[in-house]
């Protein structure tokens, strides 16, 4: 497979393996060559990274606070469990 045989349509399927470091070295070389040449795939890669980052921010907005009575009950159970 030559470098030119590596296409955008393949990159969007390989992007996760690429980010996970799970691609064979020979393919990483092809991907890097392709990325150097293709601004759209660089954008796609940036968007995937951004997506992962934003997904990681979801819990910051969680407002699942525990009701006070439940919290007190659990804390009591915790303190009394030392027997």
């Amino acid at each position, binding site marked *: 497979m030559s470098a030119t045989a590596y*296409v*955008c*349509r*393949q990159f*969007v*399927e390989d*992007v*996760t*393996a690429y980010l*996970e470091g*799970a691609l064979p070295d020979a393919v990483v070389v092809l991907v890097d060559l392709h990325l150097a040449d*293709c601004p*759209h*795939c660089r*954008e*796609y890669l*940036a*968007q*995937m990274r*951004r*997506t*992962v980052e*934003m*997904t*990681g*921010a*979801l*819990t910051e*907005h*969680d407002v*699942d*606070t*525990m009701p006070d009575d*439940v*919290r007190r009950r*659990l*804390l009591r*159970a*915790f*303190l009394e*469990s*030392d027997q």
Partner: protein
Amino acid sequence: MQATYAASVPAGDYADDELLAKALSAREPGAFEFLLDRYHGQLLRLARQYVPSDAVADEVVQETWLAVIQGVDRFEHRSSLKTWLFRILLNTARTHGVKEKRSTPVAMTVDDDEPAVEPSRFRRFSLRGRGQWKVPPQPWSDPEMSALAGETLATIDAAIAKLTPDQQRVITLRDVLGCSAAEVCDLLELSDSNQRVLLHRARSKVRAAVEQKYAEGVQ
């Protein structure tokens, strides 16, 4: 009475699993409260993917906390405290899930026929350009992205809710709750490559949802 509960370990050190486990064994209230504060929301998120309603999820998480209390002296440092908690949650949720929600087959099948991007967005008929972008992704500009931040998070949440259950669980553990690939494989009993394919499908769909939302937003 307050004085007897005074923590001997400063709260900051609870971030260290070993110190936290010790403090839990010593029944330091601060240590348990640290766990509650840090993981209650995360456990709820995870539980909701296994059971049909928020009410049942609440129940599952409370049961999980009771199981944690019972098992706190048996925590062995074979995994992080976090994965240990998640494992207890998953075991608890699965028993509820089996009872109260149509169970999903244990062996997760990976559908490989799900393109990450609409095939029509690539060239098909030009000999030289075949497989290259025809409708490439439009750059996401930072200012506009930030302006839409709240909506973007809601979009991501909604996109995750539409994934298949196995994709949901993988992306939640990996990207929302920050587990490593190895931890997810272990928790969900997945092979490396299945974990990766599920993550890939999930992330691709979430990216597409953000792209679509963003395209609407900038119009």
